[in-house]
């Protein structure tokens, strides 16, 4: 433990005495105040807040990530090039402890700068009192798209309409196609018909009139918009839905009397003249009050710090085997590709019509998207700026996977490589 602490402190001293940490903190603080003022908002306090959190904190997150990645890729590689690493490696220290201490030090330094930016965030948009309570976003209880795909598979393959290309394809490819379809599946609600979606009863039990809202997302394509009318009901609470022209609308549910619905079930009766289509997995949400903006900010910080730890661990892993510039370049390219891959996969969900080269590209993009999922799936700032709760279970998952399991795995790999890098 003493050795671990020694290396941890050494790394922090290297950062602070080279003034890198100070420069990074100063640049982050300046960014928080200057950049949101350079970005043209919509003139509202709400808009300013979104700009501040999105561009301000988002910019600092990018800056800290790249800086810590640069420090991580340089850490082992530079020490090895300058022969200092061998002095540490001949001491009674496990190679794993060397890598782990460096990961801990660099991610702590980055997390501290992020904490500074988060502390400034409530003030940079003007008043700290502007911030509303955040809300839990609940979606209907349904099997996951993958589970639904598995359930549909056998039946779908027997259908006469199923194309031959699909029938000849590998099961994993077809399951992916079906999962995409399940994710996008519509419920059609005809005139005077009722659609109902079950939500976790425990989460909605005891919510008071006016506290819970329903968010419905209608098609945002202009020519597909239509006026709708209907009634939403959740237990004893209800809301009238009428004459919509916007894509996303939030309806507060209140006690307006009438017959109570089943507990935990949100129903929508279509009273308009046209049938409506809603994707339950994507378009129907319940918003339930959670805690304050500040708790949400704290959870966002933890999630960002956890992801930063993974990025640092990845940088150090590369640094164990490659020279600094090559490691840094590889890490940055990987980060960029990992950010792009999910959108590529989303753009090309169905690969049956694709050419061979597209299929190869898709396979690469999908592999990168899956490998980089722990990093690319973390996006707490988007929810923070929309007052949506960064859920504690997601934070716990981020800490367990991104700040612990994967960094430990990468540190073990780096520790395996470290003594095997034979240099004359």
């Amino acid at each position: 433990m003493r050795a671990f602490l020694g290396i941890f402190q050494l790394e922090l001293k290297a950062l602070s005495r080279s003034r890198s940490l100070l420069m990074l903190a100063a640049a982050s603080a300046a960014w928080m105040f200057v950049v949101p003022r350079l970005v043209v908002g919509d003139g509202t306090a709400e808009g300013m807040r979104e700009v501040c959190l999105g561009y301000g904190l988002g910019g600092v997150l990018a800056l800290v990530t790249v800086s810590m990645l640069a420090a991580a890729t340089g850490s082992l590689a530079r020490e090895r090039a300058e022969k200092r690493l061998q002095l540490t490696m001949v001491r009674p220290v496990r190679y794993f402890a060397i890598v782990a201490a460096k990961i801990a030090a660099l991610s702590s330094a980055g997390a501290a700068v992020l904490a500074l930016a988060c502390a400034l965030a409530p003030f940079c948009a003007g008043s700290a009192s502007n911030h509303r309570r955040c809300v839990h976003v609940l979606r209907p209880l349904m099997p996951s798209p993958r589970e639904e795909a598995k359930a549909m598979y056998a039946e779908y393959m027997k259908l006469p309409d199923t194309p031959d290309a699909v029938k000849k394809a590998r099961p994993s490819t077809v399951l992916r196609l079906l999962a995409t379809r399940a994710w996008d599946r519509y419920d059609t609600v005809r005139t005077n018909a009722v659609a109902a979606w079950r939500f976790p009863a425990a989460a909605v039990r005891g919510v008071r009139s006016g506290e819970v809202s329903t968010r419905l997302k209608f098609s945002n394509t202009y020519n597909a918009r239509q006026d709708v009318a209907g009634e939403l009901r959740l237990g004893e609470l209800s809301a009238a839905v009428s004459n919509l022209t916007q894509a996303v609308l939030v309806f507060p549910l209140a006690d307006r009397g009438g017959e109570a619905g089943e507990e935990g079930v949100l129903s929508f009766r279509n009273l308009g003249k046209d049938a409506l289509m809603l994707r339950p997995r994507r378009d129907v949400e319940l918003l339930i009050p959670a805690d304050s903006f500040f708790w949400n900010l704290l959870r966002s910080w933890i999630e960002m710090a956890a992801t930063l730890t993974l990025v640092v661990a990845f940088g150090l892993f590369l640094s164990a085997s490659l020279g600094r510039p090559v490691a840094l370049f590889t890490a940055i390219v990987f980060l960029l590709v990992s950010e792009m891959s999910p959108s590529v996969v989303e753009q090309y969900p169905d690969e049956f019509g694709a050419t061979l080269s597209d299929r190869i590209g898709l396979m690469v993009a999908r592999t990168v998207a899956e490998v980089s999922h722990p990093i690319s799936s973390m996006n707490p700032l988007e929810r923070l700026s929309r007052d949506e709760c960064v859920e504690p279970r997601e934070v716990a998952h981020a800490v367990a996977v991104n700040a612990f399991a994967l960094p430990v795995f990468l540190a073990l790999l780096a520790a395996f490589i470290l003594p095997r890098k034979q240099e004359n």
Partner: protein
Amino acid sequence: MRPYVSITQATALEVLSSPLSLLVLLAALAMEVFAPVFHYHQFGDATRMARDAAISALFTCGAVFAVFGAIRSVRREIETGTMEMALAHPVSRSGFFLAKAAGVAVSFTVFAVAVIGIALTMFAGAAVGGAIAEETAQLARVYGPCVAAGVAAMVLPLVLAAALNRFFRFRFTLTAFLLATAIAAVAGVSSMFLAGGDAMRLVPAAVLAIAPAYVLAAAATAFAVRFRANAAAALSGVALVLMLPAADNYYRAEALARGGTVPPAYVALALAAAVPAVVGFLLIGIHFSRNRE
């Protein structure tokens, strides 16, 4: 003059031999070759994609190449003491600095030749393909050989350099870099036959993207004399950000997609801005190197 030529030559070879340089070149070529192909079916505007990808690759990868090449080359001389050894010979400090800057510029020029070669190829393929066919399948027949040339410029040099390294002990990265440049240059010249000189319209636009990279190379070389690598990179980054509004003007090259070209007066204006900037940074570098303790 001979000592300075030697320093320039050694610097250029050092930058071109760096694995990072090869990686940046391959990344730039991949951007040029795959970005238009990838978006082809989405927008159907291959000419625009070829142009944008080429100019983006030139500008972004060029900036990385120039800045890191310059900083690594200068800092290594200082930190390993080889600069002191060179200065113990009849070489002036200013001359040493200018020779280093020239070496970085030469290596960047080699990089630019490779990137422009493939840019011309992809642009020609897109322009000719777009003119003769509307169907994707027909387009692909014209575009395919251009993509193949681009992929060849990435893969063949690696294979050949590996073979030359295995059997004749050639330096892998330097050989691969020079082979990639040669293949790209041949592909670029060949594409002019394909497009009947039409692809040459890209060159003035490319000049607009290259000019800031030379300015950055001069800035990074100057900063590296005075500051450590990280600080020099950060200052070069600031220089890049200050330059961005000007560099962004390459979008005036919109005319390219419509069959025109960038007005020569505009290219002249960009060069007229770049040349004093390069000279200014070189003077700053000379000042730093003269006063270096």
